[in-house]
């Protein structure tokens, strides 16, 4: 008995202070992508190397712009490596979640990523202020690679992130949940299960799409066995991109959903 107490006392408090204190991802971490339109020579290399077709060209008033969709990106870093004009820069900013898919687009030269206030509008109309203080979440694996699952486990089981300090708890059944946290593209074999789970969750309910797969199909897009994102099956309120999103990025997504982020 004594050794158990001793071990825990020796370890002390290990819980991180994010988001009270800013968390800096390591130097090599690949997060938000920035495009410098001045430098871009429209060589198309990034479009060619990207494994998930995250880059597209958009035409606007006789001009071409490069557009990047963070919802599709798996943060492999190939585009930055391939661009010989250094027009693409991968930063280590991981706070990418948005309440609207447009918020995940980077349009070089047109405008910056839409601001969080703007995106919050849609939520404000909804009833989520109801959940402000506590949120019960049911995690639904709709065919993930297990990466996103493990990040949720890290959030929930590891004392370092300790999700419960935000009043967020993981519950065993959708019937006890306010929110579904869904991962996976979703797969064909889980579509029915996902729809049933959604309808078993009492209203008002919220759906969070976690990871590139859930946001857009990610690397598994355009395949007979998957759909391109869970919003093709159930309505989504918050998108958290990343492959997988690091635990802090998921916390950011939740707080954004709960309107607890002041920006």
């Amino acid at each position, binding site marked *: 008995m004594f*050794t158990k107490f001793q071990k825990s006392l020796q370890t002390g408090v290990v819980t991180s202070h994010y988001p009270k204190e800013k968390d800096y991802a*390591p130097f*090599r971490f*690949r997060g938000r992508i920035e495009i410098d339109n001045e430098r871009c020579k429209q060589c198309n290399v990034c479009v060619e190397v990207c*494994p998930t077709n995250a880059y597209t060209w958009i035409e606007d008033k006789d001009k071409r712009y490069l557009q990047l969709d963070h919802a599709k990106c798996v943060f492999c870093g190939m585009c930055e490596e391939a661009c010989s004009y250094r027009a693409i820069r991968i930063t280590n900013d991981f706070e990418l979640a948005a309440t609207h898919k447009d918020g995940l687009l980077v349009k070089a030269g047109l405008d910056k990523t839409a601001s969080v206030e703007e995106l919050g509008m849609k939520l404000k109309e909804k009833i989520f202020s109801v959940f402000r203080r506590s949120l019960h979440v049911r995690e639904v694996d709709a065919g993930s*690679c*297990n990466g996103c699952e493990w990040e949720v486990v890290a959030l929930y089981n590891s004392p*370092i992130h300790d999700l419960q300090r935000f009043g967020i708890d993981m519950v065993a059944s959708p019937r006890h949940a306010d929110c579904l946290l869904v991962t996976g*593209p979703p797969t064909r*074999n889980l579509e029915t299960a996902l729809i049933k789970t959604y309808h078993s969750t009492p209203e008002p309910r919220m759906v969070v799409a976690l990871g590139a797969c859930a946001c857009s199909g990610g690397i598994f897009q355009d395949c007979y066995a998957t759909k391109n994102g869970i919003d093709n099956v159930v309505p989504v309120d918050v998108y958290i991109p990343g492959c997988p999103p690091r635990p802090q990025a998921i916390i950011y997504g939740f707080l954004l959903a709960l309107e607890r982020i002041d920006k």
Partner: protein
Amino acid sequence: MSINRQPYLDNIMNRFKGNVVVAKGSLENEIYISTNKENLDDVCTYIHKTFQSPLSSIICNDERSLNKNFTIYYVFSLPDKDLFFIVFIPVSEQQPDFPSITPHIPAAHWYEREIKDMFGLEPVGHPDPHTLVLHGNMPANTYPLRKDFATNTRLPHIESKLPFARVDGEGVFEIPVGPIHAGIIEPGHFRFSAVGDTILYLDAKLFFTHKGTEKLFEAMPYTKALFLAERICGVCAASHATGYCQAIEKVAGIEIPPRAKFIRTIILELERLYNHIGDVGNVCIGASFLMCGSHGFRMREHIQQLNETICGNRYLRGMITIGGVRFDIHDDLKKHILDLLDRVKTDFKELVEIMFTSSSFLDRIETTGRLSLEHAKGLGVVGVPARASGICRDTRRNHPYAAYSEIDFDIPVYHDEGDVYARVKVRVDEVYQSMSIIEQCFNKMPEGSIKTSLKEFPPYKQALSYVESPRGEDIYWIMTAPNNMLYRYKVRSPSFCNWPSIPYTIPGNIVPDFPLINKSFELCYSCTDL
């Protein structure tokens, strides 16, 4: 290090005379044996029995555009030498069936059902004719891995019901669980037939997370497919990436720089470390020993944060690349890694000490979920559960890759046990081994470049690749196509071999022990379902 293949060739040739054609593969540890449907069972059974070679994989490939046939390859590996036997037969479209070898080699049962679902070829004589992968929700006669099926085909959803076996009788009731579980785990559906708390029978249905991964491999250029390989499984990303890169390097005939070999080894062992430590914690949680579970997850988190510093991703994605590795480990980082591992080692030792002296915990894990040596061998179980049941098999030793042939390490094996306790012990021992491997790598690692480039990508070449992931042996088979594409990439994950053994460990245990047993196997769904 290469092995003399001639005696094996002669042996098989003499035994089967005109019924087989035996040839050395282009790679020095492969022997290809061509035969026909009539002799298949005999040849396979002979190799399996005579050389004590377990079945490593069965690969079906739609080669109709090349030679008008489907080809099925049966891979056996020698247990003590670095050699693979690859028996193959043609199957024509007009007669789409092949003899099942399952009655003699039970380990073949899932492969054959998978081939039936994905290629529409019938295994004649297979004891279980039910669908495995597709759940019967696709229209009839759609076979996704045939070449005339387009990757992004959109198909209607057919209502279907999966068949389940159950036990009838007084007092027997059925408990259905999943695919949406109470915990944060992957989806599978289980039906327990139980009397009171005691389980009589378990039937499991998997393949809910089938994403068409193998088909997607055929739709991407090989450079992009690397990132798909990293996502076959979230927590074995580095192993799958290594397996993929090795396959490409073999067909292209390139050798990676020595420094890259050592860095790969370090990365693969870091992957084993964060998995094993997390899994030990997970078993504690399964046994409701939450305090030790928390400590396990805390240490796992320390290592994952280290991973993020090394290569920018907590799951080591983006580190392994074709021709080597993408980031170097310079001296500062090396010091950081070794310091952290030193701390984790002491920390982990204390944790294990607490776990293994806690009688209530031992009571839950001892004799629970026993897998006998006979079942383990028959079903071709690999990895940690195999070693906990007395099979001394580890790809790092049997078929060395990366820098493993230059490193000293032990393979922990527990005989006559096979329970949850033994599986935890194997993991604990391997944690210390991994730490020692990483230290040795740093000591032996030469200076130099970390990447070579690929000059050409030859079409229609085949190769086997193999990696010991934290869960066990991964086997990959590649065939290239023109224009930098892949013709076929078959992934055989350890969980694919280990899942079928679960129902044999359950009967006689109580329902609350199922999650515990399952956690001790640490099976992955994503890489099984593909």
